[in-house]
């Protein structure tokens, strides 16, 4: 019962945040909307017994990533509002049509036996504690875990390299 309430409540919040993100002309509002959605998803993680993931979601996504987004928004101009005018012909109707079709496809797929007919629900049995996730990660997924470290280092290095473009190297307008 609690889960149902939480689902409806935070489901609506998540949808609202997502729509806000897409709809707002000002990127600051978009960032706020996305943050709202991420918090809601963190709640769903908790209700799905993924406690550690939920914490990571709040700290990494809602915290670090969104902060980074806001930094960049500030850097390139807050008042940089986007006009509603579409300048690629047919992009908007075509996009809406594709989205609609995609939605229809997802609904159809959700109803079909090959998606839903796997097994009965075993809700709540799983343990998403730090201990459980940690032991799984460091026992069975050690190498991929180490590789992610490499990936992050490369990404950080790349970001630094990109940031070091000097203004006198400018070519375009």
């Amino acid at each position, binding site marked *: 019962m609690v889960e149902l309430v939480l689902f409806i409540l935070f489901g609506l919040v998540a949808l609202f945040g997502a729509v806000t993100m897409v709809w707002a002309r000002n990127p600051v509002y978009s960032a706020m909307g996305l943050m709202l959605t991420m918090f809601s998803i963190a709640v769903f993680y908790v209700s799905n017994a993924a406690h550690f993931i939920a914490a990571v979601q709040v700290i990494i996504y809602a915290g670090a990533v969104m902060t980074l987004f806001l930094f960049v928004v500030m850097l390139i101009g807050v008042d940089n509002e986007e006009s509603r005018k579409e300048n*690629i012909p047919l*992009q908007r109707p*075509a*996009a809406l049509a*594709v*989205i609609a*079709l*995609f939605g229809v*496809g*997802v609904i*159809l*797929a959700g*109803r*079909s*036996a*090959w998606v839903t007919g796997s097994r009965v629900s075993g809700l709540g049995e799983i343990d998403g504690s730090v201990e459980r996730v940690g032991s799984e990660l460091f026992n069975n997924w050690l190498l991929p875990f180490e590789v992610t470290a490499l990936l992050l280092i490369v990404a950080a290095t790349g970001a630094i390299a990109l940031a070091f473009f000097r203004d006198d190297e400018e070519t375009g307008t």
Partner: protein
Amino acid sequence: MTDLLVSAAILLPLSGALVMVFFGKQLGEPWAGYLGTLTVVAAFGGAAIAAADFFTGTGETVVVRWFDWFPAFGVAVELRWDPLSALMTLVVTGVGSLIHLYSIGYMHGDARFGRFFTYLNLFVASMLILVLANNFAVMFVGWELVGLCSYLLISFWFEKETAAAAGKKAFVVNRVGDVGFIVALMLVFSHFGTFSFDEVLEGAGGLAAGTATAIGLLLLVGAAGKSAQLPLYVWLPDAMEGPTPVSALIHAATMVTAGVYLVARAAPIFAASEVAGAVVAIVGAATALFAATIALAQRDIKRVLAYSTISQLGFMFMAVGAAAYVAGVFHLMTHAFFKALLFLGAGSVIHGMHGEQDMTRMGGLARKMPITFATMAIAWLTISGIPPLSGFWSKDEILGSVFERGGLWVVLFGVGLLTAAITAFYMTRMMWLTFFGTPRWADGVHPHESPRVMTFPLLALAALSVVGGLVNTPFRTSLEHFLDPAFELVALAHPPEGSLALTLAGASVLAALIGIALAAVRYRTFRTEEGRTWRIMGRGYYVDDVYAQVFARTGKLGAAWLAFRFDARVIDGAVEGTGGLVRRIGGWMRPLQTGFVRSYGLAIAAGSVAMLAWFLSRGGL
């Protein structure tokens, strides 16, 4: 022991060439010449020791196996040491040593002295590969290598445009002949499944007459190219652009006789086909007469000798065509002596005249160059066929053997006899124009006798020319006994015996004397040939011009058509068409690349929808 000596005969000159390729310049003059000469002399010595058994009549054919070449076809690099190859080896290395020695003097002061001996040594090695091969494949390697050396040496003075052109001509014309040789080899392989002389020649008797004729005629095409027979002789006169020792060694004594050697080696194939042998003889006789008439009107001393060489090779072909293989090989040997002598003597004259080759500007050299004159005179009498010099014996044996075949062969005998008379005539003309009469030297030319390093080979060759014939006289057929093991598979044609032999010999001597006498009278005082007939003969019956028109011009036209029409339209058209097609398709596809990231995103989304639809259609709703 024998196999070691035989291998060394090839490897010594070859290693000499290899050393000189890298260090020829450092060795320089005269050490490169000494090294080159020494290797060939050593090869000759080894070959002489190895051939000793054949002289005593106790020798056995020895096969020296070097290594497998194409194991799949059973082709190995093997050398064959039998009397025929032994004789050829001795001639090549013997005459080769003398000419090497002579070259030290002749090439004195040449900027590429070392390189000359590199090529010369390489040639000797190649020629030995040719004559010592134990199968057609290895023989072909030698065949091509001597062609290469010939090309390199003809255009040795490549700064001279005519020399470079002559080298190319020799190469191209030889290639025409080589095609025949190659096709003959294919036929041989398809019928025998092997290139080995032993198996092919032993099996040749079982060949169908048509096949034997085809192989024989194709071999003749190859032989005609290498040995400058009709109609492929045109390269040899031009080959005189090379240094004179080269003309003597390659274009008189050794390489050009490869065709004769080939026919003699493949004797059983020609024995299996009456037609092929007759064609060889007819080609030989025609060439002999044809070239001799051209030689009548040449002013260049080397060109006289070149046409004379072609003519004499024609005699050899006549002999081997008539199955008188011993006579042919005999003449090959004596010709190697006296024609090398003639060339070296001519070289000595040219050397003394500071490069002058035109006989109309010589005359009166007998007193200035006594040794050259004396040795040349011996060669002159030898080639004219005056007994008891070597040329008489070999030529007489050829004519006798041809006559003895009877029937239409008598016509060939007549042609040969006529040619012998003409030969005596033009050689006498050459001697008179060069050595007698009043000097007609150009200004500033002071003829002098050549150095001893050049006159010694002349004397040695003169001695060989005199006594060389004695190895096979009607009274003592030693050479025939010597060569017998090599020709045991075929029935040899023999000259007649008794009074008929004497009559024929008398006829040939008479023909020679008539030729000499006519020429001596005609050229007692200096005169040049005027008039239409002489001009036509002087130009070699315009054969070169006809070839230039017919083959060179059509070839050029064809090439021009290919280059400017076919290449421009069809090849370029195809390439540009492909390019244009791609460009056009690219033009159609171009609008798809809008540059808008969101368009690409739309495409991805549409693709996802399509994939979803596909999954749904597959999985069922």
